[in-house]
């Protein structure tokens, strides 16, 4: 029972801190570009304002358009609750493993794309078409890169996988390097960052995700924005805790939890600083370079699995 409470607390932490994480990346980027940047609380203020506003709907928007934000938010939040953040042993990881985690994100994407097709504008269709095309490559790449760890850990349960990485000294394996590279590439694509998509732009011809949610306003937009912020934090945490889990708490004593929380925050800060640096330094790709990029990620992930089977199992 205690562990379930911990899990709930972690889920609330992830959902609650998500806007802050996005604001942090914005702030880092602004500083790198010699701007002052928004306050760290700006994301919360934006959300509060959107929630208070009366939503405006397109004339023939159907119930799917109105239901979608709730499904997107719920699926993303549930996915965030699955990922162990501070404690390794989380009971919810038994209810939904990594395959379910990927599928929950896919469910959110499915509804985002449907909502985009709902109103019948060209932007919506364009965004949905592009998003589903990219997802068709990034989703298997994500599954495959996580499977590298699953096969090593003989489990698809996230807690068990992190536990294996921590305790059985997987060390420096070529398969893990492939998997890490693939997952980083996928994470950038899935969270819609540069060089795949630009979260800051509303320039019609280059955007993917923003094109899909163009018709949303008020609390619907708030829910979708929030879900996106959760997704960024989720991918960051997943990357860190799967591949660099050191510091994460293996029991629920106060000291180890405090250490784990500190380690998590520190690692996040570093990762976000890297992300901001990268985004400042890179330009966005042309849209038809993205499939090549994602195809590369998929290939890397498959190479990871193959090298695991061929090089490492027999040893």
């Amino acid at each position, binding site marked *: 029972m205690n562990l379930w409470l911990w899990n709930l607390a972690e889920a609330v932490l992830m959902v609650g801190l998500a806007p802050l994480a996005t604001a942090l990346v914005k702030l880092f980027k602004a500083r790198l570009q010699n701007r002052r940047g928004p306050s760290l609380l700006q994301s919360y203020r934006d959300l509060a304002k959107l929630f208070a506003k009366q*939503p405006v*709907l*397109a*004339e*023939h928007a*159907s119930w*799917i358009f109105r*239901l979608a934000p*709730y499904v997107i938010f*719920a*699926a993303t*939040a*549930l996915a965030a609750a699955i990922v162990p953040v501070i404690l390794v042993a989380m009971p*919810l990881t*038994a*209810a939904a*493993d990594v*395959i*379910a985690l990927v*599928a*929950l994100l*896919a*469910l959110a*994407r*499915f509804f985002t*794309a*449907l909502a985009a*097709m*709902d*109103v*019948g*504008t*060209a932007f919506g*269709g364009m965004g*949905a*078409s592009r998003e*589903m*095309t990219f*997802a*068709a*490559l990034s*989703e*298997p790449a994500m*599954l*495959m890169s996580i499977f590298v760890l*699953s*096969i090593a850990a*003989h*489990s*698809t349960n996230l807690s068990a996988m992190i536990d294996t990485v921590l305790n059985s000294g997987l060390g420096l394996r070529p398969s893990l390097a492939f998997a890490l590279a693939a997952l980083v590439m996928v994470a950038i694509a899935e969270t819609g960052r540069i060089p795949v998509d630009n979260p800051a732009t509303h320039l019609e011809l280059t955007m993917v995700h923003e094109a899909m949610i163009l*018709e949303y306003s008020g609390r619907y937009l708030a829910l979708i924005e929030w879900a996106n912020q959760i997704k960024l934090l989720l991918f960051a945490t997943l990357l860190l805790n799967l591949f660099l889990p050191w510091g994460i708490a293996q029991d629920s004593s106060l000291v180890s939890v405090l250490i784990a929380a500190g380690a998590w925050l520190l690692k996040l800060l570093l990762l976000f600083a890297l992300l901001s640096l990268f985004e400042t330094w890179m330009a966005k790709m042309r849209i*038809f370079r993205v*499939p090549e990029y994602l195809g590369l990620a*998929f290939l890397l992930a*498959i190479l990871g*699995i*193959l090298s695991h*089977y*061929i090089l490492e199992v*027999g040893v």
Partner: protein
Amino acid sequence: MSGMSWALAALSAALTAFLAGILLSATPKHQRRLVCALLLLSALAALAAGLAGLLSAPGEVRLPIGLPWLAMHFRLDALGGFFLLVLGLLLGATALYSVGYLRQLGSQRNLTPLYIFLPLFVIGMQGVMLADDAYTFMVFWELMSVASYFLVTFEHEQDGHRKAGFLYLLMAHLGGMLILGGFAILYAAGGSFEFDAMRAAALTPLWASLAFLLAMSGFGMKAGMMPLHAWLPDAHPAAPSNVSALMSGIMIKVAIFGFLRMIWDLIGLQQAHWWWGGLVLVIGSTSAVGGILFALQQNELKRVLAYSSVENIGIIAIGLGLGMIFAHYNYPSLAALGLVAALYHSLNHAMFKGLLFMGAGAVMHGAHSCDMGQLGGLIRRMPRTAALFLIGCISISALPPFNGFVSEWLTFQAALMAPQLQGTLLSALIPFSAAMLALAGALAAACFVKVFGIVFQGTPRSPAAAEAREANAWMQIGMAIPAALCLLLGIFPAWMLPLIDAVPKALIHAELGASATGNAWLWLTPIAQERASYSPLIVLMALLLAGCTFLVIHYRYGKKRRTEPWSCGHPHLNPRMQYTAAAFSQPLRRIFSDLYQPQDKLLRSDHGHTLLVKRLRYQVHVQDLLWRHLYLPVKRFSEWLTQRIDWLHHRPIHGYLAFTFVTLLLLLGLLL
């Protein structure tokens, strides 16, 4: 009543439906009601028989019909029982759907051929599942093929439907011949048509492999595995929608049943080579990815669904192939997992594909077209059909908490739990097939976003779609049953798995680990708790919470402003500005252009200057790659061959008599 009597009751109900179809042709209204009611009864009896077959010991019966020296053997075991259960579930829903569907169809044409061949088709499928000797099996198999040919060519005045029917008949018979060849080998080894003797027969490795290849290609042809799938995308859309639902939902599963019966049961996996499972795995992976890639490029609703059947058969084959590999390397409980995953996906596919084909029929009736370029915005005119169709789309895209996710999850578990096998080829093949499965799943989501988005959302692309009418109550009930089952099978897999577990128990004397079935009903743990577990109910609860929040907010703070959608300031937004079906899949067409080899054409006419455009027309056509590189060469070769032996056909009568005489002599020489 025992399971066998339920099964015979199902057969006789279908037979009565056939008679009713003939006798009542003068009164179409009674004909329709009685045939549908009898088919419903047949479905319920099949359901009962299926449950009995799964739960109790096998029952046998001999009917004194058939060949003089061979009575018809019927046997109801766990394998046949499982497929009877699938048949019962979908046939029941389809029978209810047909009451409403055929009422509308009957206003346009005479339906008597449909009422005659539909029950025969059902009898054929049930008979195959019950057959216990090769003769009975083949008789019912051919009955199923021929009856479905007449159903495919039901609207025979359309040229395309006749062509589709011919191709179907050709391939069905070629497949039948191959299966017959497989039985011939088993007959030669066992000395009897009865399955018991065939089971006991020991084959030399060469003959066993030959029998496997014959059965694999024969049943693969019927199941629509790539590269033998060419008939499927033509034949399924040509049939009326209730028949398409049965063909895609059950008939291609009967081929999976035949595959299991012949290879897992009669030849027996103890005689299997390692490459058998590898071949099934390769063909499964090819079908899964190839099927969905071609489904994405179709612009006709029923063709999309037909190609997606190829994909799902591929997923089933991946499970079967994994099972065969594990059985060969002596991991019985993993083999059971692969088989159970394949069977569960068979059941799930029957439910959601049946639902989607019925939905396509409702769209066809409501908006008079299945061309996605003519549809759009149907969610406003046909809200219930849209909601049910959406459930089908989510299920087939393997998203939680619906059923498609559970079976793909089980297949992934089987692939991931592969221990180190001898031979690096297989060690590489298994993760590769897992990758293909993941790719197919993601592409399926893209495909069904396209289908639902273009057909049901946006604004109507034609006047007929703007005037679409909602399906009638019978059709809605028929669709609601599989939709409800999609959800139930997704949430309570732990209740279904112990039932399915009887099949591997009977076939390979292995079952899932005790944790799979002995655990609390909330959890799905196919191997062990620490390896992998999934609890659909928790996922469902999270989503229900979201739904309830939506409803509360919707009714309490429902005040919203409606306005025009934003269109970059362009004043008149019209339906032609929406993305079309071809536009939606354009990025994928570009990425996989080597595979699609799209042929596009831009036709333009202008007022004397290139800038004064009068009309622009863009056409793109994607042809099945295998059609050009496999089927057309075969066609050309057989034409060449027939031309070479053409002179044989221009003999006078004594020439033919001489041929007959020589043939007789040769046969006598062979026999003596």
